[in-house]
């Protein structure tokens, strides 16, 4: 019997769904090796179909998106019961992602909306938003992580092979991507100077980047030194800096702190005023260093900040 798989989406943009479709001719190969039992973006199964399945009967459920509403939490818990393996798919499920930046502005209030009749004399209720956005592993136990915003076809294929075809399960908690920094697989690695330093920060919209030279050497913040490899340096190949969507390598506890450290260490100033001026050239440090991972920062994980 073929293994059963499911896909679900939480607080996300739809890009993670898109990247499954981007498997192109490989997509039928996914259905060759597994039956898809739930996938709201493409197939018409209902929540009640999942609820009717025996516990643990779905081999792997891939959940993308962060946890932001009570509906998402309820669905995540349902899939945890029904699945042998839960995979946090993409940066939002893994670390909170871009929606997680909402945590910078404090409490999220429910937007006003007009009541919609359910046809039985009552009204539909919109899912309630939580005060804070959380990564999936604060809501339920997660077995594996597929990083990326969105994950690339190559690492999705590699995860499919490991989890569904070869069934060689790595230790629980493994991030299914290489455990070294992006710089080591960067095509511009050779142009990174020995004494790399930044005199003045520049932003991508303020300059035309040379297409062959290390982006950091051009004064633009690139998070390659702090970010996990595995994306084949796609942004660099498009002449844009790495913004950190693959998250940290295994030895790092807090991605933003480590990324900040690697960039600050490249500055050259020794005087207070000089450095004050330099850091003002980075208008949004939290949004730069925690772009995909604010809810998984150590500050957010302090006691009292967890879903369960």
């Amino acid at each position, binding site marked *: 019997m073929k293994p059963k798989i499911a896909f679900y989406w939480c607080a996300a943009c739809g890009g993670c769904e898109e990247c499954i479709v981007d498997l192109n001719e490989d997509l039928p190969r996914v259905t060759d090796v597994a039956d898809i039992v739930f996938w709201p973006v493409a197939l018409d199964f209902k929540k009640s179909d999942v609820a009717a399945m025996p516990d643990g009967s779905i081999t792997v459920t891939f959940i993308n998106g962060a946890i932001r509403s009570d509906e998402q939490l309820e669905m995540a818990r349902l899939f945890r019961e029904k699945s042998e393996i839960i995979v946090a798919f993409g940066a939002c499920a893994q670390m909170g992602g871009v929606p997680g930046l909402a945590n910078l502005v404090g409490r999220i209030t429910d937007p006003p909306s007009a009541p919609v009749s359910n046809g039985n004399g009552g009204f539909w209720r919109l899912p309630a938003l939580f005060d804070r956005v959380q990564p999936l592993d604060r809501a339920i136990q997660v077995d594996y992580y597929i990083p990326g915003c969105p994950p690339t076809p190559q690492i999705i294929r590699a995860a499919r092979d490991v989890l569904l075809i070869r069934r060689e399960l790595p230790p629980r908690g493994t991030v299914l991507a290489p455990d070294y920094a992006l710089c080591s697989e960067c095509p511009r690695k050779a142009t990174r100077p020995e004494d790399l330093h930044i005199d003045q920060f520049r932003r991508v919209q303020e300059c035309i980047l040379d297409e062959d030279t290390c982006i950091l050497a051009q004064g633009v913040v690139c998070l390659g030194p702090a970010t996990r490899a595995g994306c084949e340096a796609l942004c660099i190949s498009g002449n844009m800096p790495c913004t950190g969507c693959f998250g940290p390598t295994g030895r790092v506890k807090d991605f933003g702190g480590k990324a900040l450290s690697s*960039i600050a260490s490249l500055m050259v100033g*020794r005087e207070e005023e000089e450095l004050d001026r330099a850091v003002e050239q980075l208008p949004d440090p939290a949004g730069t260093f925690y772009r995909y991972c604010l809810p998984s*920062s150590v500050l957010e994980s302090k006691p009292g900040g967890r879903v369960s």
Partner: protein
Amino acid sequence: MSEPFEPKIVAFFCNWCTYLGADLAGTARLKYAPNARVVRVMCSGRVDPQFVLDAFAHGADGVLIGGCHPGDCHYQEGNYKALRRFKLLRRMLSQMGIEPERIRLEWISAAEGERVRAVVNDMTEQLRQLGPVVKPEPVEAS
């Protein structure tokens, strides 16, 4: 009546200057606020921003980093490295709800026991005024 608020300060002092300054304050029997918990590090440049974040995550109300005066670093450049990280980290933390007063970098030499006392007393008083770090409200689980 509840107890008056006493801030907890995690202090990272460099082995060669500020830690010796604190030692001198001790041998000179200077009295100062007991609010700082000192962690000895080999150099202020060893203070990874993750240490500071971790201290706040574990309930610190302030973090004090002490290093050698500019030009006096035992490892030549470590204190400049500390200064660069400190400037950027303080700016980022203020976006995340940790006020700039809660993180402080001071150059204190081995001869400046009196300065250890002044800095710890001053920071303790500032944090008393500021109160505890406002923690994010817990997410309500159904």
